[in-house]
């Protein structure tokens, strides 16, 4: 789900110990990740697969998404993130802009370089949160009721004139269902009106209606029914699951796709029974994804997936080695990837294949120099050097998001590229290959101090002691995948030589096959069911608010199949919102 992010300043350390921690240097082993015996309550771990997977059914799935597992335990109350809260306040109170009050909220959890997604369990209300919510609610209620025009925007016609008591009742009857995102009970209305009466008893000056509404607004804005997304499910259960109510589905769709509360049109669809069937959910989701607001989720998802927020952690590179690096390169590189994602999947309805194989990029004059783009082909780079211009790489040399400078530089070391970082990322987030844990002594190693003529040689020497099944050797994934990017230096410039020696980008990984360079690798991955499944699994995690990314559940198959057939991001999401993983909660 959408999350507010902030710079973590846990930038990758140069020391190899930090590298080991960040990406699992020398991550040997089979990659078993299931260990549910850790003695601490944590809902997400319940989703981990059993040690012995059942035999897949061969005919109705796309491997690897062919396993039948029980669905994960789900939370039933999930606090709004700061960005969700901001958008909700804007929409609920019909403000002209986001209120900005969340600047005082404690930061929401962010995905790190080694994790995707967030957990409901991390979204709590601490003392600091509550004090900030209290302050924000008091300020916003006073702001809205302190200006007649602002107040008028949230009043139904019946609340604009007449008896104070009747006006208050009319206001609450209209406002409360919007705030709680569902129909409300008579008791809920009475409870809130009672707060207004307390206001009247305490405040003797001012318009009695405004006095009441101020306190009522203040109370509603602090209600757990607003601050949490509540998913209790309907009464009927099957196999330990209950289907979300239509209003709960609308809320999950709205926050998942738009980052905010359902609007009146969506609620009208719910009222009309549209979300009572899975087909109806798909139709509604398709419509929501066609709405410009869906760009919020599509951009936020890829920001998290490709670690875009972290790029500006890279402050400098040795200019003697990388003279093209400049102060604002990484913020420019962020803009490049964000604009590219927008171009590919928001404006042009692309999917995973486009993301890993499109030569499109957006550059200004300085970034174009890093890419080695011929500026004479793009006059705008000269006439408007700071503006971003759409360009195309030579697809034989560079294509796909992971060959843009931002990611390449972020997953690089100051002097040499970091095949370990790059390879581990591809393993974890492109093909969802589980990595094991570092072996004894791994933390003492530093590739830059290894022996060898090239970066590849030094990394190989440094990680050689790991043996098979890790960096290299039989079954190794990190090094081969990382070495495929050796054609890009540590700020993402193309190169053919590593010092005086030619680079070697060849490799072979069991899940992928043999390749020579990142372009051929991603040509293969663009048609790989596993890579498509990995991408769909990340979306599932995002939509369901989990950090667990699993490519094996059978219910993922329809989305994988769609993606393999050049389905768009929107197509994948529509498939995922029809699954029980999205539509049900655990009991």
């Amino acid at each position, binding site marked *: 789900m959408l999350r507010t992010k902030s710079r973590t300043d846990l930038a990758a350390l*140069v020391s190899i*110990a930090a590298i080991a921690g960040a990406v699992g240097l020398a991550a040997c082993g089979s990659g078993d990740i299931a260990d549910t015996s850790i003695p601490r309550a944590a809902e997400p771990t319940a989703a981990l697969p059993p040690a012995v997977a059942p035999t897949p059914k061969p005919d109705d799935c796309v491997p690897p998404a062919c396993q039948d597992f029980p669905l994960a335990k789900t939370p039933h109350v999930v606090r709004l993130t700061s960005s969700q809260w901001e958008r909700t306040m804007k929409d609920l109170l019909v403000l002209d802009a986001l209120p900005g009050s969340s600047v005082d909220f404690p930061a929401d959890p962010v995905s790190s370089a080694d994790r995707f997604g967030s957990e409901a369990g991390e979204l709590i209300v*601490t*003392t600091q949160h509550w004090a900030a919510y209290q302050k924000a609610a008091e300020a916003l209620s006073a702001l809205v009721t302190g200006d007649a025009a602002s107040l008028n925007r949230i009043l139904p016609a019946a609340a604009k004139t007449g008896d104070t008591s009747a006006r208050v009742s009319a206001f609450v009857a209209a406002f409360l269902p919007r705030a709680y995102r569902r129909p409300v009970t008579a008791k809920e209305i009475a409870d809130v009106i009672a707060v207004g009466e307390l206001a009247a008893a*305490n405040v003797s000056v001012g318009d009695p209606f405004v006095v009441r509404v101020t306190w009522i607004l203040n109370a509603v804005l602090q209600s757990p029914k607003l601050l949490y997304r509540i998913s209790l499910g309907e009464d009927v259960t099957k196999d330990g699951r209950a289907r979300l109510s239509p209003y709960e589905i609308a809320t999950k769709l709205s926050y998942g796709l738009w980052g905010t509360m359902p609007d009146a049109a969506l609620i009208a669809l719910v009222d009309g029974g549209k979300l009572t069937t899975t087909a109806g959910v798909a139709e509604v989701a398709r419509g929501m994804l066609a709405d410009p607001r869906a760009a919020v989720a599509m951009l936020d998802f890829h920001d998290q997936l490709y670690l875009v927020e972290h790029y500006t952690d890279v402050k400098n590179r*040795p200019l003697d080695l990388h003279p093209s690096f400049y102060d604002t390169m990484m913020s420019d590189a962020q803009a490049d990837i964000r604009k590219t994602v927008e171009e590919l999947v928001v404006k042009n309805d692309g999917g995973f294949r486009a993301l890993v194989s499109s030569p499109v990029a957006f550059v200004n004059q300085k970034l174009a120099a890093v890419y080695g783009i011929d500026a004479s082909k793009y006059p705008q780079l000269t006439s408007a050097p700071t503006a971003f211009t759409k360009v195309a790489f030579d697809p034989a040399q560079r294509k796909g998001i992971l060959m843009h400078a931002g990611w390449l530089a972020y997953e690089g070391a100051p002097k040499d590229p970091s095949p370990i970082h790059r390879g581990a990322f591809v393993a974890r987030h492109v093909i969802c290959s589980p990595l094991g844990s570092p072996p004894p002594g791994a933390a003492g190693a530093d590739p830059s101090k290894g022996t060898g003529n090239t970066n590849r040689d030094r990394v190989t020497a440094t990680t050689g002691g790991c043996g098979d099944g890790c960096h290299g050797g039989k079954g190794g994934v990190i090094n081969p995948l990382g070495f495929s990017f050796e054609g890009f230096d540590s700020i993402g410039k193309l190169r053919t030589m590593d010092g005086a020696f030619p680079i070697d980008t060849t490799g072979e990984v069991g899940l992928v096959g043999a390749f020579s360079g990142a372009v051929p690798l991603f040509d293969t991955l663009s048609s790989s069911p596993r890579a498509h499944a990995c991408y769909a699994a990340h979306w599932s995690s995002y939509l369901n608010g989990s950090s667990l990314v699993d490519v094996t559940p059978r219910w993922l198959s329809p989305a994988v199949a769609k993606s393999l057939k050049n389905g768009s991001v929107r197509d994948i999401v529509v498939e995922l919102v029809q699954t029980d993983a999205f539509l049900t909660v655990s009991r």
Partner: protein
Amino acid sequence: MAFSRRKFLLGVGGAVVGLPFFEGLVPKNARGAGAGPQPYALFYRRGNGVQQAVFERNSYPASGWYTPTEPREPERWWPMADASTPIPYGPLATFGPISALNELETYVSKTTVVRGLRHPYGTENGHPEGAAQGLTGAGVLYPADQPNFQNASPLGESLDNLIARQLTPAHPESLYMGVMTQKAGGVSWIRQGGSIFPRSAEENLVNIYNEIFLPYATPDAARQLLVNQRKSVNDLVRADITALRNDPRMSKADQDRLAVHLNAIRETEVALAACIVPPTLQAEVQGYNASSVTATVDVIGKLAALAISCGVRRSVLLNVGVPQDVIQYNEVPGAGAYEFHAISHRQAAENDPTPVAAARDLHHAIDRYHLRRFKSILDLLSQYDLGGGKTLVDLGVNVHFSDLGSGQHIVTQLPYLYVGGADGKLVTGQYVDADKEYLVKFLNTIGAAVGCTNAANAGPLDDFNADNNNYRSKNYTYNYYLSPQPAEPADGKPPIKGRLPALVVA
């Protein structure tokens, strides 16, 4: 009309500069109206370890005890008679001029320096793991049990919150303030049911002021209106959350999260004891220079001291920096050009490993700088005279620590010290050898001294986080700095229990 020293002071153009914080602005006869100060704990946490001889830039030993490959750095943390002569364990008359601790020289008789504490198992991956253990003494949990320095959380709550939960139930979370923490979690953790949740420090000191002290400082009518309005909201919210928690469809984890919310409401409710707030304090919290660590700690110190003296808080945590402190200490000559984390690794920048020769001395200077900040808080607390030669410092225990030993992430030789004996419960004026003792025993000792009890409520605290404080990730394969290696635990057993007898007044 009776003479009012306070009104007199206010009448002089508000000029109170130079007057002691408490003596000048809190008439003694006002203190008795509230709960008054009780034994308390104040924790000052700073990151990146300290400059001590154990540091070596290139060493991450694969096994065994630390085997130096470079000349040792000079010892300038632990008490030193001169540059090469350590002060022996035992009574402390001085910290010596070499040690950074010299900054606390005026408090030497009230201080105990504890050397040799260690975390249960290695944290060589990085800072968040040290931070996770620094006040918990608990094991470290990784996602899917995979060691990962960016995703480490403890398996137990932190002591600041245990103290608050047990001793000030109306405020079950510590008063947690931060300086340039970027709202990051990692140091303070709360337990709710079976779950552990991170807290982030409050950096907006106006919020702290408003939460704790504003109602003292506002006119009665306005204060009462605010109280009434917040009560109306809190009553409604509390009822709604309680109903949600009681819904049978909620899981235990759902209920725990909502319980945290309920506690937060209780924490922020206006529950005021009589307390006189210096009239200049509001202006100070609104106008201090937030880019200055010195100025920020100064204001934090005043808020902390006042909260303790008023008896509204008994657990205060001050954290400077994110777990991996990247502050550029502009107020330390020469240090402003580098992030502290780079200095602690003796290099130029996060991603520039070029050695910096001055970094060793800069780290030492930053150690001294933090101790001066810590001392500034002690100086404030010292102004509150309890009579009999005792001050507020003596009533509580004021702990200064870093959760790593040195800049190279070592988890032994953790630099912990305390000032003040918790109303006579702890020995002071001592240099104590706690060689290879678990940190959690130190935490048990501190908690027990201020009045915390064990899980069975059958005696002073001696089993802090014992359900998991010996847990080691099954996949954690790094060797430890101890030789021989400690016995490998099995799922947190046996638990680490007990206090450090050398610190307890017999």
